[in-house]
Each structure stands twice: as structure tokens, then as C-alpha cells.
């Protein structure tokens, strides 16, 4: 059986745009192999050129379909495009059915487009880490625009969207209650609002509602980004060009106001913290076993409370660690 190619050897190939090398590196990043860390570090140093766009919205709002059309328009504008499409893992088996690609078939034969499906794997932060590694890989591989399509609404995709330079939130008409439900969460992080399925009669109402909501926090000033609300439809195709125009305008806005630097810092900061948390959590899971069972008995029997048990568990872990280091 042939020996696997070392990840560092794949780096120059990936940087030259070899899609096979990029695909392999994304898998290794996803598996969390230590072997690929130096390669990812090298690619990170050579990334930062691409414009990264996060696309989120409630399940069924038409994100995948929109992403395909948007990616086609990006290609038609002479740019290359990478797509990271994230779907949830089953909480029971850890497996997944990644179906976003079904709606992106028109990009399949295009050498200037790269689509990669990823599962959330249920691990906090794991989502952000591997998908952002994938963004770095495609970025270093020369893709001009990278679209991250997230899972439906929840906590995770607020994180993942903090990973994009531009955030697009997709709402579908007829989901008035959903708009209420996510008002305080996802809607706030939008740089651009999209109302999909604009061919439906109730789309105008959703546009009006969103505009009404946004008009409440309008501040004066020429430098302020005014979040547009764009109605899109795939069949008949309309509004996709407006969306790409808005994304490009937002990129120019970030560059001309210097806000891009702030965003880059924010993204980098988020990533450091997420990865650190993940390392701590893994370490914790590895070490907790000894003390945990005893504490569990006591909490279940109501001889101690969960908070006190958690504090005791952590102090026992700290002692272990300081013994190891001594």
C-alpha cells in the first residue's frame, strides 16, 4: 500500500491551485491530524487574499440554491469561487447526510469553482475550526471569493458567521414568526439581508418588515454601512446580480473605511479563543474520568450539588496537572 503524501509536500501543490491537494488537506484538517498542523500553518501565512462571505438563515430559506446562483454570477464576473457547505451531523450516530451539493449541480463541471461539504460533527468549535482551515486552504489555493454556507439558525452559525468579512442573512417569505424568533440573534449580524423566493406573493411583506426593523437603528454619517434588503428569486432569476453588487460594495466599504482590519482582528481573535477552548475541553474529557464517577454518585444521591461537584472536579484536575508539571 503506498505511503500517504506528507501534508507539507501538498502545500506547494495546493498553493499552485491543485484541487486534489486542497481536497486532501481539507480532509486532514477535518480529521484534526497533528501531522497536518505545520502545513495548515504554512497555508495560513499565505492566505488572507480572498473575500470571505458567510451565508446563513433559517432551514429551508433557500441558502444552497442561492449560493449556487451567486457562485455562478461570481464566475461570470471572471472570478473564481470556493464554497464550504455545512450541514448538521446526527446527534445519535455522528454521521450525516450532506445534501447541499444536490442544489449546486450547475457548478459541478466548472474548474473555477470548488465545492466542499462539511458536517458539524456536533463538537462545539470543531465546526469553526475545520471550516476555517478549509477557508484558509481555498484562500491560499487562489480562490477569489469564498462562500461559507452554514447550517440553519442556532448558536453555531453566529460563530461561523463571525468568520466572514461579509455576512448575508437569508430570510424566506411566509416565516414571519421565525423572523421574530431570530431578531435578536442572527438578524443583527447581517451586513446584507436577502429575502429569498421573491416570486412568492408574500415576499414584499417580509422585505417591508426587515426594512422597518433596520430603519430603527439608522445612524447618520457617510461612513456608516447601510444594510441593504435584497429580494432574490431563482426561478425566474432576479436579484442575484444585486446581491453580488452589494457584496462587492460591502468589500469596498470595508477597505475604504479601514474596517477590514477590525474584522480581520475579530476573526483571528475568535479563532484563537475557539481553538484554545477546544484544546481545554479535549484535555478535560481525557482527564476527568477518575474523579467524575465518584462525584456523579454523590450528586445523583443529592449528597452534594452539581455546582460544588464541578468546582471539586476542576480543582482535582488542576492538582493533577501541577503534579505532572512538577
Amino acid at each position, binding site marked *: 500500500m503506498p505511503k500517504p503524501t506528507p501534508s507539507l509536500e501538498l502545500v506547494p501543490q495546493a498553493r499552485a491551485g491543485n484541487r486534489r491537494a486542497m481536497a486532501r488537506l481539507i480532509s486532514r484538517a477535518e480529521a484534526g491530524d497533528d501531522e497536518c498542523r505545520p502545513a495548515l500553518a504554512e497555508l495560513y501565512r499565505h492566505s488572507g487574499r480572498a473575500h470571505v462571505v458567510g451565508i446563513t438563515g433559517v432551514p429551508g430559506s433557500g441558502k444552497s440554491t442561492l449560493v449556487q446562483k451567486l457562485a455562478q454570477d461570481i464566475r461570470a464576473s471572471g472570478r473564481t469561487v470556493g464554497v464550504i457547505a455545512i450541514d448538521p451531523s446526527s446527534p*445519535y450516530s455522528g454521521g450525516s447526510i450532506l445534501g447541499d451539493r444536490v442544489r449546486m449541480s450547475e457548478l459541478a*463541471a466548472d474548474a473555477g469553482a470548488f465545492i466542499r461539504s462539511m458536517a458539524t460533527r456536533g463538537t462545539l468549535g470543531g465546526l469553526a475550526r475545520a471550516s476555517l482551515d478549509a477557508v484558509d486552504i481555498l484562500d491560499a489555493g487562489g480562490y477569489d471569493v469564498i462562500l461559507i454556507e452554514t447550517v440553519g439558525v442556532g448558536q453555531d452559525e453566529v460563530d461561523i458567521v463571525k468568520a466572514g468579512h461579509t455576512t448575508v442573512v437569508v430570510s424566506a417569505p411566509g416565516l414571519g414568526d421565525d423572523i421574530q424568533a431570530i431578531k435578536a440573534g442572527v438578524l443583527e449580524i447581517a451586513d446584507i439581508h436577502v429575502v429569498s423566493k421573491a416570486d412568492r406573493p408574500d415576499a414584499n411583506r417580509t422585505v417591508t418588515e426587515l426594512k422597518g426593523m433596520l430603519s430603527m437603528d439608522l445612524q447618520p454619517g457617510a461612513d456608516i454601512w447601510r444594510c441593504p434588503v435584497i429580494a432574490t428569486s431563482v426561478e425566474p432569476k432576479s436579484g442575484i446580480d444585486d446581491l453580488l453588487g452589494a457584496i462587492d460594495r460591502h468589500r469596498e466599504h470595508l477597505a475604504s473605511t479601514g474596517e477590514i482590519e477590525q474584522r480581520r482582528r475579530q476573526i483571528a481573535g475568535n479563532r484563537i479563543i475557539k481553538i484554545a477552548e477546544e484544546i481545554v475541553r479535549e484535555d478535560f474529557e481525557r482527564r476527568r474520568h477518575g474523579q467524575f464517577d465518584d462525584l456523579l454518585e454523590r450528586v445523583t444521591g443529592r449528597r452534594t450539588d452539581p455546582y460544588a461537584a464541578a468546582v471539586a472536579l476542576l480543582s482535582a484536575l488542576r492538582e493533577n496537572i501541577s503534579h505532572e508539571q512538577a
Partner: protein
Amino acid sequence: MNDDNRSIRVLLAKVGLDGHDRGVKIVARALRDAGMDVIYSGLHRTPEEVATAAMQEDVDILGVSILSGAHMTVIPKIMARLREESADDIIVTAGGVIPDEDIDKLHELGVQKILLQDTPPDEIVSSFRALVEARGER
């Protein structure tokens, strides 16, 4: 790292005019329940699209489901494109309705496993695991 981080990735593909996707969806479900990441191509893909998708997704296994009888047309094209994409380390399996006399020919083309339509889902899961294990690290 736990085993979850190394789940098997599979692309299940329907190619050409074959519109029968009930079987492939049942297989997708069984593989997911066995902890695999399953990418489904959707109906009516070209052989080239399927091979390119398998390369980009860097799957361990490409499973082609064919009930239309077009396997001897479609599979050689998939194998050729995989070689072009230097992705011929991807394990190719075929399933569905395939006459006995074509089985050897498909093996010669490089198809590693042929799972006919009466194969129980559990057997598909275990043969996929065995194929990936036999391949080893890549």
C-alpha cells in the same frame, strides 16, 4: 483524537437518466446511522460531475447507484475522469441492477465492490468499512 473525527466519507451518486432514488436514499440513511458522512449527488448527474465531486469532497468511497442498465457506459467514464483528476485512490463501488455477466467487466474497470439491489443495508455498511480499512491511511 476520537474516532468521530475520522468518519468515513461517502459520495452516493445517481448518473444519467436513471430516476430511481429510493434505494440510494435508504443506503444513505443506513450509512449515516453507522456514523459516516454521506454526500448525495442528487439525480441526473453526468459521470464527469460525479467524479469531480468525489475529488473535491475527497471521499473515501464513491458509490454509484444504477438501475437503468447504463452502467457499462457510465462507469468507464467515471473511472477515466477520476484518473484525470488524479483521484483514482478513491474506492469506487456500484450498486443496483447489474447483470451477472457485467460484474467481472466492472471489476476489471477498477470497481472494487458490486452490491446488488438485494444487499441488506448492514452488509453495505460492513463492506464499506472493510474497503476503507483495507486501503489503509492515505
